[in-house]
């Protein structure tokens, strides 16, 4: 019984990590139709930003404050990834609107460069981020099952990001402009919306969220130049499975993949579990090519 | 009379996410007939064409071709093979290919992979295409990239492609939309020419254009059949006038009481 409860929680936890990783993509890919293969590298940038924040605290601030570095690391990761996203959009992505497959190839090149850049700056080996003490340990529930605080924290962080994104996209002026541009660029431009600015902001926000994902991942896994490569394909699967352009779809996609992954891995083993999950995704997309939550359109193409 | 009906739509209903674009629409097209389908925006004219050519599956009702073949469950390419050609509102040509190549692949022929792989351009084919080029007035531009043609030329090219397909029924969606007056006149001539040999359904907004043809007109409104008859009959009809003059509410009331 404990095991099933724990596995349920693990499934939820994996779902939350996948969702966090895919949220940024849901914006850049889902809304802007840019297949950003450098998304993984933006996650990596977020992780290294956390590492740098930690070092800053370690070197310049009193020991007693160290545990709070992580609180600062989240906005810092967001900010740095945001800036990288902005630069990327202004120098490159803006030439690629309407050419999704080209954007895939070009951003893949960007990814290569960023990885090598990280290797040059931080060295090829992994770096260590010491998680703050207040995230050590876990919550013990009724029958002694331990739910690690870090996993709970990531779940909370994802929910916070989702809520923030929801309010930004659906409740703010900026968000309204963003939706307008994404739905009908020409019309929005005619109505006086600066599409250039909105594009840049949207892409940068998507990148910033990747940065937050990177920050959260330092709690769970390695921090190295190839960090992004471990998550990029999974992130795309989440967005595609969920249905491009719908936040609800992305949430459902992440939950589906996370839960099934845990289930299959528990039944079989890690390799076979992964294969089964991907087979399911392929099969599902055959059945529903537009994903779980599809947007219908009457246009010819 | 029923025997010569080449296309018969019975009680066709199309629903998009709860919105009924077409409701219980019936249409009968005779062999060799030129039919205009008119109506205000959102009347379901284009959707009706979509149903006939297989782009949209009707929620209810059936469409019969040639008196016996039910085409509601067939795929687009099968319907096209049967002999129903469709011209879309926006010119749907293949922009990266030359005018000649566009016509070549549209030409009536065996469309299996094997046949196309070993297809040779016969003199007879070249004559057919040449004839068609002259008819649509693009003989000078056969080597041009189709994407580089003007809007009107693209429309004619598409009509030319349709004709080479030699369909029994041709479905045309606003063939003169966006054309200059001169282009419109030329298209009108083309249409006369076409209508002599096959059945044609034309969706059109331009009443002036429609008036040039002495043929039957079907008026649709809110997914339903409003009126069928000659242009004069249609124009003298009160409900049609109301619909076109925008007295919608009254029209609804009058219809619901009718």
């Amino acid at each position, binding site marked *: 019984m404990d095991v099933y409860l724990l596995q349920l929680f693990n499934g939820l936890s994996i779902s939350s990590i996948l969702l966090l990783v895919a949220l940024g993509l849901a914006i850049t890919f889902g809304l802007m139709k840019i297949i950003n293969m450098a998304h993984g590298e933006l996650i990596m940038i977020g992780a290294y930003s956390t590492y740098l924040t930690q070092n800053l605290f370690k070197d310049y601030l009193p020991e007693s404050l160290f545990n709070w570095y992580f609180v600062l690391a989240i906005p810092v990761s967001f900010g740095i990834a945001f800036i990288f996203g902005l630069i990327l959009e202004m120098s490159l992505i803006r030439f690629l609107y309407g050419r999704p497959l080209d954007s895939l190839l070009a951003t893949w090149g960007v990814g290569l460069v960023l990885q090598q850049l990280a290797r040059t700056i931080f060295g090829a080996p*992994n770096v260590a981020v010491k998680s703050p003490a207040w995230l050590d340990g876990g919550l013990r529930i009724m029958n002694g099952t331990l739910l690690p605080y870090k996993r709970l924290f990531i779940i909370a962080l994802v929910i916070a990001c989702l809520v923030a994104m929801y309010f930004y996209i659906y409740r703010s002026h900026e968000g309204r402009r963003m939706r307008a541009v994404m739905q009908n660029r020409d019309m929005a431009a005619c109505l006086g919306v600066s599409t250039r600015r909105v594009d840049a902001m949207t892409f940068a926000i998507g990148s910033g969220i990747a940065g937050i994902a990177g920050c959260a991942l330092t709690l769970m896994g390695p921090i190295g130049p190839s960090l992004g490569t471990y998550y990029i394909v999974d992130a795309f699967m989440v967005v595609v499975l969920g249905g491009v352009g719908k936040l609800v779809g992305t949430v459902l996609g992440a939950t589906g993949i996370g839960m099934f992954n845990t289930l299959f891995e528990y039944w079989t083993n890690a390799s076979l579990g992964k294969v089964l999950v991907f087979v399911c995704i392929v099969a599902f997309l055959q059945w529903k090519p537009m994903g779980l939550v599809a947007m219908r359109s009457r246009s010819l193409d | 009379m029923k025997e010569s009906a080449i296309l018969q739509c019975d009680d066709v209903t199309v629903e998009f996410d709860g919105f009924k674009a077409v409701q219980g629409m019936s249409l009968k097209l005779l062999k060799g007939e030129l039919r205009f389908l008119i109506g205000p925006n959102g009347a379901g004219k284009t959707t009706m064409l979509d149903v006939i050519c297989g782009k949209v599956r009707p929620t209810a009702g059936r469409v019969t071709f040639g008196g016996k073949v039910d085409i509601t469950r067939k795929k687009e390419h099968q319907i096209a093979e049967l002999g129903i050609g469709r011209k879309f509102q926006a010119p749907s040509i293949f922009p990266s290919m030359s005018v000649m190549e566009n016509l070549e692949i549209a030409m009536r022929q065996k469309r299996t992979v094997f046949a196309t792989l070993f297809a040779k351009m016969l003199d007879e084919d070249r004559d057919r295409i040449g004839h068609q080029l002259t008819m649509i007035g693009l003989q000078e531009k056969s080597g041009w990239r189709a994407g580089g043609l003007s809007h009107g030329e693209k429309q004619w090219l598409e009509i030319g492609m349709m004709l080479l397909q030699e369909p029994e029924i041709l479905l045309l969606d606003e063939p003169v939309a966006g054309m200059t007056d001169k282009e419109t006149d030329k298209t009108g001539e083309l249409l006369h020419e076409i209508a002599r040999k096959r059945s044609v359904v034309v969706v059109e907004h331009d009443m002036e254009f429609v008036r040039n043809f002495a043929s039957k007109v079907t008026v649709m409104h809110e997914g339903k059949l409003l009126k069928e008859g000659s242009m004069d009959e249609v124009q003298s009809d009160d409900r049609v006038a109301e619909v076109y003059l925008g007295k919608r509410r009254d029209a609804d009331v009058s219809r619901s009481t009718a």
Partner: protein
Amino acid sequence: MERRLFYQYCLLLIAVSLVLAGCGGNNKAASTNEATNAPTEAANSGTSAEGEIKVGILHSQSGTMAISEVSVIDAELMAIEEINAAGGVLGKKIVPVLEDGASDWPTFAEKARKLISEDKVATVFGGWTSASRKAMKPVFEELNGLLWYPVQYEGLEASPNIFYTGATTNQQIVPSVSWLLENRGKKFYLLGSDYVFPRTANLIIKEQLKAEGGDLVGEEYTPLGHTDYSTIISKIKEAKPDVVYNTLNGDSNVAFFKQLKDAGITAQDMTTLSVSVAEEEIRGIGVDVLEGHLAAWNYYQTTDTPANKTFVENYKKKYGDDRVTADPIEAGYTAVYLWAAAVEKAGSTDVAKVKEAAKELEWDAPGGKVKIDGETQHIYKTVRIGEVQADGQFKELWNSGEAVMPDPYLKGYDWAASIQPTE
């Protein structure tokens, strides 16, 4: 139409010129071949220019394996520098030729071929993964080159063209399993990355457990780059092993140990022994997570030998105080010295002569005295089991006392009969 043809023609011109350029680039190579009048034998001379001996260094500088391999390059370069400072080999300077294997096995094969036949290096130091070694092996055998491979591996191999300066199974895995059975318990859980080394190692461990009275309570492999271990940790919790024998590779270790700690399992609750976690990896995982866990190696930075003291000192002086040394780094460093000693002894860089001279060659390595076993071309090494301390260093819990003779095919173990290769 005509114009299209014309630009295709331009492209063709480029194609032709490309091929010609390729040829042009090779005229040099071809002419050197002619000059030495022996295209294939020339490959082994290694003495291309007066007063210089070229050696190849072929590790991954990019890709996923760069994590581990760049430090080995550093160690090898340092050894070359030291030897050069001390007068070189045969009075000549050693010149390293660096190539990037890019964590891609066919690239390793290609670059190995290039180093031997184009650069005409005397020997190559390179490889980390078993896969990269297996990819290079046929090339070295075909061209009669010489490879020094510096990493512990799964054994069952003894190529006449490779010297193995890392441990084989009987110098790391087998003694560590015996030690664990004696000191930590009988119930083993085998966890590894899904590739050749863990699978072969576990095949051996399973035979050994059968023979020495251990219990196998679970066996799991995770894809390389796997980052979530929650389910596997659940399985481990259920199986309640005394020991988790960990053959995970690289990044997976970070995820595994971080998540193991979060799941409330510490070194006090359960022993884990790793064979791919050295000082370098500890820095990337975090000491707080690893403290108290075990590892089996032949060398630690803390190993107390006079040679090691200077080695660590020099390494830190050259590459920075924050750097650490580790087993593969020491093995790479040792490889260069062993080769240099063999060349001195042979008086030539000729592969056959070097191999002959290397037989039973001894050297005081930082990890203790090593000796090349003439038959298998592996080296005698001391086995050490260590525990991770709070400062990121290992405390040695046990060592084999003397250097253990390499036995890559485990011929000295009765229980290993079924593991012998079929041919």
